[in-house]
């Protein structure tokens, strides 16, 4: 490539690239803000997701095997064991 052409290609890529980065991230700011507004509004009526998610039983990787460690882990959480009844109620409603 000739040096002058290389220079002009470089300038073009610089302007164009920097411009695009800004356009893209500006759009991301806009859609993100919009998304947050919609979700916040939605959650006012629908409530938030449970903090830990609700990992489900899976047919693919049988859980009857992995329950034991999970159980042990759960035992550590003394607080949760206090709330067993409440959790059970919640799950039976959501399954």
């Amino acid at each position, binding site marked *: 490539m000739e040096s002058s052409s*290389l*220079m002009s290609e*470089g300038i073009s890529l610089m302007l164009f690239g920097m411009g695009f980065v800004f356009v893209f991230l500006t759009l991301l700011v806009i859609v993100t803000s919009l998304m947050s507004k919609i979700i916040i509004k939605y959650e006012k009526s629908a409530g938030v997701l449970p903090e830990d998610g609700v990992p489900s039983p899976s047919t693919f990787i049988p859980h009857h095997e992995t329950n034991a460690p999970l159980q042990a882990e759960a035992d550590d959480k003394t607080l949760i064991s206090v709330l067993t009844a409440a959790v059970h109620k919640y799950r039976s409603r959501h399954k």
Partner: protein
Amino acid sequence: MDQIIRLWHNSGLYQMEPGQAVMIAIGMLLLYLAINKNFEPLLLVPIGFGGVLANIPGAGLAEHGGILHLFYTVGIESGAFPLIIFMGVGAMTDFGPLLSNPRTLFLGAAAQFGIFVTLMGAVALSAFGVFDFSLADAAAIGIIGGADGPTSIYVASKLAPDLLGAIAVASYSYMALVPLIQPPIMRALTTESERKIKMVQQRHVSHREKIVFPLLLLLLVAFLLPDAAPLLGMFCFGNLMKECAVVDRLRNTTHNSLINTVTIFLGLAVGSKLSADKFLDLTTLGILLLGMIAFSIGTASGVIMAKVMNKISTNKINPLIGSAGVSAVPMAARVSNKLGLETDPHNFLLMHAMGPNVAGVIGSAIAAGIMINYIAG
């Protein structure tokens, strides 16, 4: 007796070329920096060791049929390793701070300025005959300013495989040097009162927002810049695994044994590119120099962007968090925090700086996509 002579002729000492000796010394230097000075040890230990192995005369580890060459072909030439690492980084990234203050994305955008100025610099040096970089080379060099190892490696493997060794080493070295490079620039560009700005406490970000964000980002990339889709797609996939909470066992493997395994082989494979004939070249000096410039300009533009935003908004941003826009997660954010505390011991900026910090990852992946689109597209 013949055997002893043949053994001697096959020995490293006999076959050693000066360049190989120098490269072994450089590999050892990288190991020293990684181990004693904590220069990004997770990458520089494998890279440094790989560099030594690649330069053992007569062993041919980095040549066709050698084990390092195999790792390179399988993992880097195919693009798999950097992309898997990006998935793992996604599985470790918390977009909460960014979502609570999306404006910080502008800081992540501004910090990419270093990338493009450096590209321009590399092109100019070539135009004036100092170096002989092609446009593709210049682009790969510029990405060093993105302060993202896997992005640099990915772009270099696509656009300038011959420079990959030097670019990766420069990239990780400068990331390790963040605590040395950034503070003087940040101090020079801010007044004490600016550094004392206290930012509003962040709002709580709901779980649902965090789940939707990676999908939103993915769609935006898909619609606007498909060339960034491999990098950001894998990144968003990792992040979705983290946030959706229903595939925790996959996510745990991703950000533990999977990313660790890939890191080891990525490092060794990068090391295979540290052969004397490719690395011991004025070009490498140019790359190191330009990489440093890219880094500095990125830092400066992040800070300046924050000051500009303060001019047009009443919700003030402490310009110290602008420098975190180069990414180098989470070290750049820690540097911001440290300088904040230096000026006012009650001004904790860490969580505020995490916003531009992760925005910088997105920003440089976008910049990478544009480079690839422009040059290879």
